[in-house]
């Protein structure tokens, strides 16, 4: 294998073995999950990023036909301690490193990822590049555009079902959100991120789900008004980026976290019951708690570790949102019940509609 490097914005260099001859740049983030690498790399929320896996042995069970969260890989690179070339699993169709190669995703392995993670924790998320040669001059770090337009569907896709009709606003949705809705019998229409309010109304949905997606929610400021209108009219559920967009659309603000939350072990506390749930998370931004005051939102979940906003519920409108991923994959499904709660939200709206008319 060829030597390769991960060069960071702060000048630090990590050496490793380059798999394939490809190079890449992007924001370097780390994920603490010990399983689920296939789900993680195929999560469109990682678009444009270089993922560092904290767990050192990646690829043990290979890759398979079932576990990808999207058809294409949108991330820019992968950094690991070791990638298993002899995977063992009854479903395995090939090795992880081969999968990355075929999707032309550069990866650097044999890296002391723990040291790298500690640096990211201390310096905060940084840009970086995977290269075969050490750069001679100073690297110019470009700021990236929003990846939402790239990862979002270009046109409407409909999945029929017997139950309520859900419009899934796609900012980079994970397949598991779709399958979670389908498993409850929903008909789902997936719409591009820039769908207008009128287009949504025309679809006559029973509820709207704003999906996860990559990057800074502020970059989508053009959609805030649409989102506000949708959420005031329909039972609305926001996940991850969707949650941030709902908060922004109703007047709250967001900010970047020092190094984000990415992993399968994040405890969130449900304020009503005091119960703690372990959740799957993948986000670099948070809703600022102090800015919720005049938005009509109440806090439902907080992160047990750093107290950040993990869930919101609107006092007047039928809106719920969570920062974490109830659809799991990778990660625990302790909060899968929130999809049922969304169904109840819809039923309640139905009752209200009935009462008002």
């Amino acid at each position, binding site marked *: 294998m060829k030597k390769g490097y991960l060069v960071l914005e702060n000048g630090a260099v990590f050496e490793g073995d380059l798999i394939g001859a490809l190079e890449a740049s992007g924001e370097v983030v780390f994920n*603490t999950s010990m399983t689920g690498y296939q789900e993680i790399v195929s999560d469109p929320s990682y678009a444009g990023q270089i993922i560092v896996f904290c767990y050192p*042995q990646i690829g043990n069970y290979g890759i398979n036909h079932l576990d990808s969260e999207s058809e294409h890989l949108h991330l820019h690179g992968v950094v690991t301690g070791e990638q298993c070339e002899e995977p*063992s699993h009854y479903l395995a169709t090939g090795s992880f490193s081969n999968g990355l190669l075929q999707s032309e995703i550069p990866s650097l392995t044999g890296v*002391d990822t723990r040291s790298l993670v500690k640096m990211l924790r201390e310096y905060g998320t940084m840009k970086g590049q995977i290269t075969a040669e050490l750069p001679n001059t100073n690297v110019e770090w470009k700021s990236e555009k929003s990846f939402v337009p790239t990862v979002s569907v270009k046109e409407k896709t409909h999945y029929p079902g017997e139950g309520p009709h859900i419009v899934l606003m796609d900012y980079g949705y994970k397949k598991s959100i779709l399958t979670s809705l389908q498993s409850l019998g929903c008909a789902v229409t997936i719409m591009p991120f820039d769908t207008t309010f009128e287009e949504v109304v025309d679809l006559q949905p029973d509820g709207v789900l704003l999906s996860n997606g990559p990057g800074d929610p502020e970059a989508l400021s053009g959609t805030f008004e649409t989102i506000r209108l949708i959420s005031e009219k329909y039972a609305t559920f926001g996940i991850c980026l969707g949650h941030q967009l709902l908060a922004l659309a109703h007047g709250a603000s967001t900010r970047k976290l020092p190094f984000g939350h990415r992993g*399968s072990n994040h*405890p969130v506390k449900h304020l009503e019951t005091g119960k703690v749930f372990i959740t799957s998370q993948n986000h670099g931004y948070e809703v600022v708690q102090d800015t919720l005051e005049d938005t009509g939102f109440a806090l439902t979940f907080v992160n047990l*570790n750093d107290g950040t906003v993990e869930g919101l519920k609107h006092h007047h409108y039928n809106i719920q949102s969570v920062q974490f991923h109830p659809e799991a994959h990778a990660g625990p499904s302790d909060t899968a019940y929130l999809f049922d709660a969304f169904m109840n939200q819809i039923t309640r709206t139905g009752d209200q509609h009935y009462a008002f008319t």
Partner: protein
Amino acid sequence: MPLRKELKKVVILGSGPIVIGQAAEFDYAGTQACLALKEEGIEVVLINSNPATIMTDSSIADHVYMEPMTLPYVEEILKKEKPDGIIGTLGGQTGLNLVVELYEKGILEKLNVELLGTSVESIQNGEDREKFRQLMLDIGEPVPESKIAVTREEALTFAREIGYPIMVRPAYTMGGEGGGFAADDNALLEIVDRGLSLSPIHQVLIEKSMLGWKEIEYEVMRDENDTCMIVCNMENMDPVGIHTGDSIVVAPSQTLNDYQYQMLRNVSLKVIRAIDVIGGCNIQIGLNPESNDYYIIEVNPRVSRSSALASKATGYPIARMAAKCAIGFTLDELPNPITGNTYAAFEPALDYLVVKIPRFPFDKFPEGDRVLGTQMKATGEVMAIDRSFEGALNKAVRSLESGHQSLTGLYEEVSQEYLNEQLMTPTDDRLFFISEAFRRGYSVKDIQLLTAIDRWFLHKVKRIVEAEVKIMNQTDLSEELLIHVKQLNVSDAYISKATGKTIDSIMSMCKEAGIQRGMKQVDTCAGEFEAITPYFYSTYLGSDEVQKTNEPGILVLGSGPIRIGQGVEFDYCSVHATQAVKKLGYRAIVMNNNPETVSTDYSVADRLYFEPLSLEDVLAVIEKEQIIGVAVQFGGQTAVNLAEELHERGVPILGTPVENINKVEDRDQFYQLLDSLSIPYIEGKMAYQPGEMEELAAELGFPIIVRPSYVIGGQNMFIFRHMDELKRYTQKLESSSKKMWPFLLDRFVEGIECEVDVICDGESIVIPGIMEHLERAGVHSGDSTAIYPPVSITEEQKETITMYSEKLSQALECRGLMNIQFVIEQGIIYVLEINPRSSRTVPVISKVTNVPMVEWAIKAQLQENSLETTGLLEETPYYTVKFPIFSNGKLKNVDHVLGPEMKSTGEVLAIAKTSEEALRKAIVPMWDPNKLPSSILCSISAEHKEAACDVLMKLKEKGVALYATPGTAELLNDKGISSITIKKDLDEIEALMKEELSAVVSIPTIGREKERSGFQMRALATRYKIPCFTHLDTLQLLVLEGSKTFEVNSLEHWHQMKETPIGQEG
């Protein structure tokens, strides 16, 4: 919910003596729990009869009761202490069973003691086979179908109903003997026939087989508010069928994808919620390797061996959190002590792998049946951490101290047929047979077919084997290869052996090539948060993150895995040494590799290195830390054995000079020393080859003791009374290992044995107490019943013992602790042996005399003339008896007859005002002392017959029916003691045992020979759970005089009594 303020006083039940299946992990759990409760202001009462533990220190609990762990005694304690609550889920199966019994007998209710944590109903839902089964069916979770059969016809019907393959388990057989897998009717009937005849209750369990399935474990925490989470999951490298305690285990799971990981996680949470556990819980699941089908194998509604492992593997202190949950806290209220700023309600993420390998006692019991199955056989375990499986596996292998430093090289001579057989039938050495198979060119697929081990593990083992072979075959060790093998953490010792270079030259080659270890932190969170815990491991796959310091540190070497002869007592000593080092103002650095122990709790040392205790690993830690001295006296023989190699490399060793350590371990030097001090010893000779042994024996005269040099626990020691016995033994030896030579031959003196632990400061000595062995010499000190203060040693003899100890200490320039064993025969006091270190009796004597022996020893090593009191200290006004506990019934083919080789796995302590009462309490685990046996079967060897008559007469007079084998019956008859003669026929003996027999007295000439009928008789007694006395001096305990009470007292109470002697109590 916050702390329940109404709880003022809480009882914690310990797990009693160490037996196979229940080891030091409960000392770790109990210690954590006691401290967790104490820091909330709760008064803690601890009940545990095991004196070798940390938890029974008066500093851990407020009131420590070292009393028998049976209902009458525990009830007395509860009456006396009047606690508000009791926790039974931290003391293993012993604690759990006791608390259930206390509840069921209505004692808790009567005494108004609340059961804290998991309720009895929940415990039973997890423990009771049928209740558990029903509960699983109710919640729709699959358990393997099973039925009990008492006839072959029934078995066949059930098997066809359930479908093959079938697992057959005979009820109550030794080590699961007679069970097996059946793939069809014929095989089934064969196993069932055998199983039914072997089962004392004539029952077999017919169970759906999960042969070859993956065995996965989850450690779960749950609080009262139903917050429920996983601390760690683990995967057994060995598939279902081998007890998890006997399996090689890796954490986290390696071959499960996220779907499966989460599926089984959800199942675990669902089951634990259904059982309604509060605290920690372990669940074992079988997963089909070819689908997502699974079965729940077992649930332990308490902390366990696995939870100790999970705690050490992740850094998450399960027992501590379980104790806090039991007193009302919820997990989100409890800080995660590792990070300090996050909470206990989260799931640890690892950025390393952990490998556990069990430690088996077959080096001590070469005759034992080594086949692994559902009955656990390991006495202890090691754990290793690295950033690759290969690295962790190699580190674990060298932590085992089983003599091998590599995977290959152990079975190169075996035939292919034998090799295949060993691959198919798992034994303790299967890893090494797999390695040998790879060395011979077997493919991963071949081995997978034979072992059913997942390919992932096999590929990794293959990679190590290939690397080992490569070094062996290379003439010149290239830098590239060296880097490769060190990244796999292949040992320097192996590289040295393979290349013919010295270890030091390998080390310097590594240095030159820039191959360096990084010391990484265990932080529960994969680096996501800053951790404040000084818990480290080394890896060749990453850079160092240990903060350099200039503060001088002292390295305390631990004792590695628990094995026969080296148990939890050395962990006690290591922990105390660490605390003493800290108290004296030095940084204490601890190295150990045993996940069950208190010493590997990150809160004990200033810095903990979870590492193998081999030269290269110890030197690496010394290099990182500013070590000004290494304490080698507290980690048993493991630590002492490192002293010389460290000393040679210029490492300062604390305590007795290393040259003098050798003086007591080398026979010739030892005799010279004793001669020069005019101290009598028992003449011995050294035999270098078989023929010599007979010659020397003739010179010394029989009886003689024969043993190989440099041993722990009297390994392979034998007493021979006649030349033919010796000849038979030497014939056998010729075919076995060469490593045992030379052999030591000693004249065997059958006198009173006693031992002392001496603390020396270079000038003066102090002896806190002399322990006398109840059995006459010839029984290993670890297996003997010992009493303090001594009952048959005169004042004058005590003075001589003290004088000899002083002379020896001065001659050896002893600093710290030293254990000396004596035998007294016809007024002459002989020195038997010296252990230049702390010993098994240190915790016992420390506790009963209230002398902090280890602390004084450390002080003596670090300061001049530190001893404030000297000489033999005044004896306590109460008696203490240490009684050995054997893991009978766990190991097939092992004879638990008392002899010069140590066989016990643990011990209990009893304290009372009189020696009789102390003895009576001590024997409780073997025999209810308030009951006389109704009938006894006696079989006594010729030489002991005379001596036996006295005690047998007494028993007879008390109305005990005596059965005897022909020879014994004849002698008894001669002495006018009538008995019923029983032929030396196993069927007849078995029939007697089945009917009714309260005890067996079997005093053999020589143990460990399977063909002897005595051995068979003892094995039968074990099968029928009939107490078996193998030494007359132990049998005496049945006819003790004196009052029978259940008086209980806490350790502190005894200590007070020491200050105010009996008779002057207010």
